[in-house]
């Protein structure tokens, strides 16, 4: 079978169509195969062009791309680009599957570190810090900041993935840990600031020593380390999480703890 090689080469049109579609990666999310339906949906513009006159190959490709898939929705486009490049070059089906599976894990991890643990807390923290004072610009600032980064990742990723093709595989592997570490540094610094800013925990207890009265909060704790209670409490919750308690149980514990402390006038 002879076909014009230009005819099946992907253009910007297909690539951007894939990037737009990737926004619906989780539209039919289910626990059985997670993002598989959305993955195939996103890849279809490329598959339809590449296998235009080969219906049997299209069927085979479609079936393959309905296998389990799960990665970070903001970083799926580099994978889409790479897989589209492989499909276009007519790579072996097993190689395509291998690359897809090899990429989805690390990119899922990087995506969690970058999007959920760094960009979201920072942007939402900034927005909330304004909104909590009644400033209407808070939510707007959050949406703008967050989405500029979000769409830069999605649309930058598709070109990056496609152009770098297989070369991207090597560079992504060595980069994973470094990117996560850098994201952790920025993220942790901000979390430290959030702990000091947004946990309100003060004790109204007053210590009676003979005739002298000392307010425990302002007279003792603040003299040693202000915000000591929020920091200590955060590490207590951290310890509970490490012990394997679920967030749901911890919420119950926090509510009970608060009511008891209120009853005895400790908090």
């Amino acid at each position, binding site marked *: 079978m002879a076909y014009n090689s230009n005819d099946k080469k992907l253009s910007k049109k297909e690539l951007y169509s894939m990037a737009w579609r990737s926004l619906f990666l989780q539209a039919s999310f289910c626990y059985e195969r997670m993002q598989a339906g959305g993955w195939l949906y996103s890849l279809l513009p490329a598959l339809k062009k590449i296998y235009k006159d080969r219906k049997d190959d299209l*069927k085979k490709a479609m079936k393959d791309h309905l296998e389990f898939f799960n990665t970070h929705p903001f970083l799926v486009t580099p994978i889409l680009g790479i897989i589209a490049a492989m499909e276009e070059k007519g790579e072996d089906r097993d190689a395509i599957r291998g690359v897809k599976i090899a990429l989805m894990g690390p990119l899922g991890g990087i995506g969690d570190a970058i999007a959920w643990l760094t960009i979201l807390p920072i942007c939402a923290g900034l927005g909330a810090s304004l909104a909590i004072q009644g400033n209407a610009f808070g939510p707007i600032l959050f949406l703008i900041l967050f989405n500029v980064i979000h769409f830069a990742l999605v649309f930058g990723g598709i070109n990056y993935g496609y152009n770098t093709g297989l070369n991207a595989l090597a560079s992504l592997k060595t980069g994973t840990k470094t990117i996560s570490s850098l994201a952790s540094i920025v993220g942790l610094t901000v979390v430290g*600031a959030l702990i000091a800013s947004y946990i309100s925990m003060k004790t109204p207890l007053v210590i009676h020593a003979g005739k002298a009265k000392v307010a425990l909060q302002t007279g003792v704790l603040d003299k040693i380390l202000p915000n000591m209670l929020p920091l200590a409490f955060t590490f207590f919750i951290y310890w509970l999480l490490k012990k394997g308690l679920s967030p749901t149980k911890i919420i119950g514990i*926090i509510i009970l703890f608060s009511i008891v402390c209120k009853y005895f006038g400790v908090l």
Partner: protein
Amino acid sequence: MLIKALLIALYAGLAGIDLFDVQLHFHRPVVTGAIVGLILGDFEKGLVVGATLELVWMGMVPLAGAQPPNVVIGGVLGTAFAILTKVDPKVAVGLAVPFAIAVQAAITFILTVYSWFIHKADKYAEEGNAKGVEFINLAGMIPLFIFYALVAFLPLYFGADAAKSIVNSIPKVIIGGLQVAGGIMPALGFAMLLKIMLKREFIHFLLLGFVLVTYFKLSLIAVAIIGIIVAAYSYFNGNLKNDDGEAITDGI
């Protein structure tokens, strides 16, 4: 109230979709609070409640597919209850969280049943029917939209007055306790971030941010910029270890 409840239901449905798809993140409480506040006629309070709920949900993000208490319903009902029952924002947090947990349990069930969609897609792939696959993927958004809209609508339409009288009948110590709980609940969000991010060699960065605010009263923007500078410094001076434990000397 019917129109307001319908508007909030519409918003909740769209926000429920935004949680998974497109992800502009207008479903986050900091935005939800403002919008629900606007609908219910108390924008200012909506902003404050939304911001308070945002901090609680800060670390509750879908890591590796695990679903935390539902942020959409928590934000919508938390803000609505705070405005309708006139309680303190911190009390609203205590009221919103149980709803959010129940809704998330229901969603776990829904996403299990969603296998139906992928089996449909299998059939279309077998036939080489690309249009069918495209349709079935997008159709997955419809049941979730309806679910979120219903869950937001029912308690608001039928329960606003009931909720108000229930809240009024709660003893003072419980309300006070919920207020304390709302104030310290963000610790859970932060602790969940720490559980994933905190490594022994990084603990001083956490303390840096803490100290910058506690003693120097810096804003979050300032702390974030300092964090970026510190990260850049570590990167360019080769303090970071790469996968093989060797210092990184040039770019990735």
